Structure formats: structure tokens, C-alpha cells
């Protein structure tokens, strides 16, 4: 079985799990009293945000190692992870404003967390545009590695922006030093969703990596 075929199965599994997350979140998880049903957006928004940031961390690390090792697999992985990162960042930046409208009364505000997340999406897009613009493989890999490392530096600022600046965005209630302040049933739904998004990320990257590899082979051939 090829990497693309395995990736297809992993993606299919991830989509089935995502459907189960929808059922659990919408039917079996209680409605939060102060925010109402809009709070349930949290179960897709947060895992997508975690993977939008983690994907950039992986790109940054792969870029650092690429600059030392010159292994093309690291460059290919970084490109695949960037394509998938755009998808998760788009989910974050669409579900976030849909939650913000009923809770904050506005779709968007130039809050530190929101603005830095938008910058993350622009770094992803810049990374992919740069790769499309440079034909020399060695140069393309080196230049895009530099952007990948810039993205890696940005991620801690995104995560800690709610602590570093006065912001509208809620403080972390799970990824924080003390115990999660989320009721057990909601935490289980969130972790289940995080698992589904993790499998989707793996499946997406496996398929995208095989497409990137095939495109390279076609160009070389």
C-alpha cells in the first residue's frame, strides 16, 4: 500500500471520528449556561487552533534540521505541513468570528490573539507563494526554511498573547499550568475532538507529502 493510499484511509478514519465528535458535541454535551449553544463552537475551534500552531512548529523544526542536514524529506514534510496548516488556520479564523459575533457582539477586533493568528495564516500563505515562485529546488528549500523558522518564533507569542496583552480573547482553560477548569463531560468532548483533528492532520500530511513527492518526480523526470 502506497503512502497516498494509507493517507486516504487515515483521513477517512479522521472524518468518521469528526462526524462522531459532531454527534457527541451537539447531542450529548450539555449547553453552557452563559454562552448558550455558541459555546459548542469551542469543540472545533480549539483543536483546529492547536493544530494550526503545531503544524507551524513542525515546519519550523523541519526547517532548522533541513538547514543542517539538507535532507529533502524534511523540506517536503514542511511543504505538506504548510498546506495542511492553511486549512486548520482557515477553520480557526472562520469559526472564531462566528463565535465572537454572539458573544462579543462583533465579528472581528484587532485583539492581540486574533491579529497574531491572522499573521500566522499570512505566514502560511507567504510560505506557499514563495515556494511556487522559486523554481530552483535548493534555493526554494533554503528560502522557505527561513520563513518556516520565522513562523516557529511566532507561535509562542500567539499562545501567550492572552497573558502578555490586554485582550478580549478568553484565557486558556485547558492548556495552562493548573488543572483544566472545564467540566469533565466537556473536557472529554474536547479531547475526543482533539484526537479526531490529530488523525486528520496525519492523514492530510501523508497524502499531501505523496503529492509533493510526485510533483518533484514529474519535474525531475
Amino acid at each position, binding site marked *: 500500500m502506497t503512502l497516498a493510499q494509507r493517507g486516504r484511509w487515515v483521513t477517512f478514519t479522521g472524518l468518521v471520528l469528526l462526524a462522531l465528535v459532531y454527534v457527541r458535541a451537539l447531542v450529548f454535551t450539555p449547553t453552557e449556561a452563559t454562552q448558550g*449553544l455558541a459555546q459548542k463552537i469551542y469543540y472545533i475551534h480549539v483543536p483546529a487552533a492547536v493544530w494550526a500552531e503545531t503544524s507551524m512548529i513542525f515546519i519550523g523544526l523541519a526547517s532548522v534540521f533541513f538547514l543542517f542536514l539538507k535532507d529533502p524529506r524534511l523540506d517536503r514534510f514542511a511543504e505538506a505541513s504548510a498546506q495542511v496548516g492553511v486549512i486548520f488556520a482557515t477553520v480557526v479564523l472562520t469559526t472564531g468570528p462566528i463565535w465572537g459575533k*454572539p458573544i462579543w457582539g462583533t465579528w472581528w477586533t484587532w485583539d492581540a490573539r486574533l491579529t497574531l493568528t491572522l499573521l500566522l495564516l499570512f505566514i502560511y500563505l507567504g510560505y506557499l507563494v514563495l515556494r511556487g515562485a522559486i523554481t530552483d529546488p535548493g534555493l526554494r528549500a533554503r528560502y522557505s526554511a527561513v520563513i518556516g523558522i520565522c513562523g516557529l518564533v511566532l507561535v509562542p507569542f500567539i499562545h501567550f498573547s492572552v497573558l502578555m496583552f490586554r485582550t478580549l480573547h478568553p484565557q486558556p482553560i485547558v492548556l495552562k499550568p493548573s488543572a483544566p477548569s472545564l467540566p469533565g463531560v466537556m473536557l472529554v468532548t474536547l479531547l475526543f475532538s482533539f484526537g479526531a483533528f490529530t488523525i486528520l492532520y496525519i492523514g492530510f500530511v501523508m497524502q499531501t507529502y505523496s503529492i509533493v513527492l*510526485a510533483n518533484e518526480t514529474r519535474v525531475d523526470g
Partner: protein
Amino acid sequence: MADGVASLLALDVPQNGGYMVAAYIVAAVILVGYAVSLYRRSRDR
């Protein structure tokens, strides 16, 4: 009495289910759309 309290509590919960439905549909369209595009891209090779 109990019904009255329940209806008062229900009134206090914001009625914003439409936003939740919209967010879940948007997320599904993006994720399933990307999965389909990957399937088609790998089939076209």
C-alpha cells in the same frame, strides 16, 4: 412551579444556536472539501 423555574432558566440561556450550526457547517465544508481535493489530486497524477 418546577415548569416555571425551568422556563425562566431556559430564557436566561442565550438563543444563538444558528451561529453554532453555521460554524459546524463551515468547518465541515473546509475539512471535507480539502479531503476531496486531496483525493482528486492524487487520482489525477
